[in-house]
């Protein structure tokens, strides 16, 4: 006969049952699996640069060529102003955060489908997947940033102390990419044609962002509406941090940031809600 005191009730390590709660961030699990996040990011980076003969240089060549084309078309032909700065530098400085963002977005949105072999065989917090996909674009960014510094030296433009705010704006770009990716990735699992929409979305978004033109060309009455685009704040802020040209449109940045954060929170909830069906649907 068992005495009640003898019966030690151990707490189970894991309880598995159908999930009911809507908001379950489970950050503890993310922390526990942080090493796996590192490995997945490391894998993406290595694979990216391993077999390509061009490899690392593509990260530099691509924005350089875009810059040349933009300079020819938008500056020389269309005569678009550039806040009193040499257009090439202006464009390149806009291209850098933009390329990081669009790469992170595209990879993030496709990441879950691309990892279907893992999802059906092993357990880990699925949030790691889109998170890890933002690592390789970050490495690309670093390479092209070096080129930007070279360009600035060429045009005799010294960076300002605003440089220290750069990581902040990059962080914003990262959050925007994540937020959008978290919405698109589960949608892509369910409806595969979403994957085709993403490159198009990216292109349209670029023209809606101050990459090839400054925010100053947008008429005042539209500016509030324009700043709903989170990347508007990011790119303008990026340029301000580097060159100190004009005051940063803080209003723009503030509105953008609130939009992003709302998007992010919603994205996390939606992703967590969908992830329980990934293995069944993928």
């Amino acid at each position, binding site marked *: 006969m*068992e005495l009640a005191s003898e*019966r*030690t*009730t*151990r707490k*189970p*390590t*894991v*309880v*598995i*049952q*159908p*999930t009911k709660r809507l908001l379950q961030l489970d950050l503890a699990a993310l922390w526990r699996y942080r*090493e*796996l996040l590192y*490995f997945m990011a*490391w*894998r993406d980076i*290595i*694979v990216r640069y*391993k*077999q390509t003969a061009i490899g690392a240089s593509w990260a530099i060549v691509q924005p350089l060529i875009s810059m040349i084309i933009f300079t020819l078309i938008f500056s020389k032909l269309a005569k678009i102003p550039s806040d009193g700065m040499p257009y090439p530098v202006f464009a390149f400085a806009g291209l850098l955060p933009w390329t990081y963002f669009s790469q992170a977005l595209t990879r993030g949105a496709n990441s879950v489908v691309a990892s279907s*072999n*893992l*999802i*059906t*065989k*092993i*357990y*880990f917090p699925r949030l790691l997947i889109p998170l890890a996909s933002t690592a390789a674009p970050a490495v690309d960014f670093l390479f092209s940033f070096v080129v930007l510094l070279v360009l600035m030296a060429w045009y005799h433009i010294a960076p300002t102390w605003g440089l220290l705010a750069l990581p902040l704006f990059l962080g914003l770009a990262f959050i925007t990419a994540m937020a959008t990716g978290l919405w698109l990735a589960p*949608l892509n699992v369910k*409806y*595969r*044609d*979403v994957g085709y929409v993403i490159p198009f979305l990216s292109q349209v978004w670029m023209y809606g962002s101050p990459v090839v033109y400054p925010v100053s060309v947008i008429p005042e009455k539209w500016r509030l509406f324009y700043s709903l685009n989170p990347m508007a704040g990011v790119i303008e802020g990026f340029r301000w941090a580097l060159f100190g040209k004009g005051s940063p449109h803080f209003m723009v940045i503030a509105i953008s940031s609130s939009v992003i954060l709302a998007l992010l929170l919603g994205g996390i909830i939606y992703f967590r809600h969908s992830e*329980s*069906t990934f*293995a*069944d649907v993928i």
Partner: protein
Amino acid sequence: MNDISIRVENLAKKYDIGKAKCRHDRLRDQVAHSLKSVFRRNGRPHREESTFWALKDVSLEIRRGEIVGIVGQNGAGKSTLLKILSQITEPTRGRVEIYGRVGSLLEVGTGFHPELTGRENLYLSGAIIGMKKEEIRRHFDAIVEFAEVGKFLDVPVKRYSSGMFVRLAFAVAAHLDPDILLVDEVLSVGDAAFQKKCLGRIGNAAKGGRTVVFISHNMIAVNSLCERVIWMQGGEIVEDGPSAEVVSKYLAKSGEGTNVSEEVWDEVATAPGNDSVRLHRVCVRPVDGSPSDPITICTPFVIEADYWNLRAGAHISLSLLLLNEQGITVLNTFPVIEPVWFKKPHPEGLFRSRVYFPGNLLNDGMHRILLLVVRDQAEEIYSHEDVLVFNVQDSPERRSDWHGKWVGAVRPDLRWETELLEGSDALDKKGVILRGEP
């Protein structure tokens, strides 16, 4: 109560087939479908709601240190159960409690990337299946040795042979040190020596006090590794008990569809045969048993044939060919020395012939009988193909460490002798270089 490893309560998992059938893979189709249903007449929803329950109310408890095998036909729900225990998919109903760290081996080479080298994949795969970086580093040399990939360690994995790939993948998985190990048929890849290594590894894990849950179709492995076996069918547990018992029942049942261990024809007019002879009954059974009892490689069994002789004075006898799964004729037997009726004229009537097979002669597997009725030991009067189909089950008793498929049309138990002829000093004198311990 306090050394439970896994507790499953009323677990159920449903898949929506109906939704999957008219599930639209593309957003534009989904939009079109939704629009159509708006305009549909009578508002009748066009929906085939058919659901498939992969698991229906499964409950079980596994204690710490138990080694449990799960067997069953494909589609029985075994893999679904393991997927839920591994947290890959969510249950529809029910509850699972797990005590301890879980390691799942549902596939060999999870996470391997073809462009990365063996070394890089080792770390990556280790991290993916749940090992900490420090753990991987600690076991690194042991993993490389187990995998026997040696100098190929820094070569991209896409250049590996399939054997090397599997060895490396399993080597990583083998050094995962969880409290609970869930294994799903990963051992069906690789050659025999490798499989032996894997099974040995799993056995060691079990001896170390870990809980092991092991899905397999290899009944030999299941029998030798597991003390307890759970038989699942159609999403439910059919049997749960000591391995020898459950495996035996499972094999008997799975042969049931195709097995013919007994057949009876009551009417002479419609029985198979011709105007000389007609079959009444055939059966195969263990010597002291009935046709429904299982036959293992050790069981002596008997084949009985009852037949009507319709011609007075006929010199008839039976001849029997035994064929195995590959269609090879294992043997042909007929009464050479049979005490009563051999070479004597048979009157009209119902006869019974029996032929006795000793145990430890046949190999395991499905066997079929071709029955011949012969006149004067030479002329074939009647033949009946596949008159009996029966399964000879393997038995772990005569296996020692070997778990693979035993080749050969027969598997007789022959006598072996080994003796030491010359000791090492004699070899020394002859100038043979001795190498010592391998």
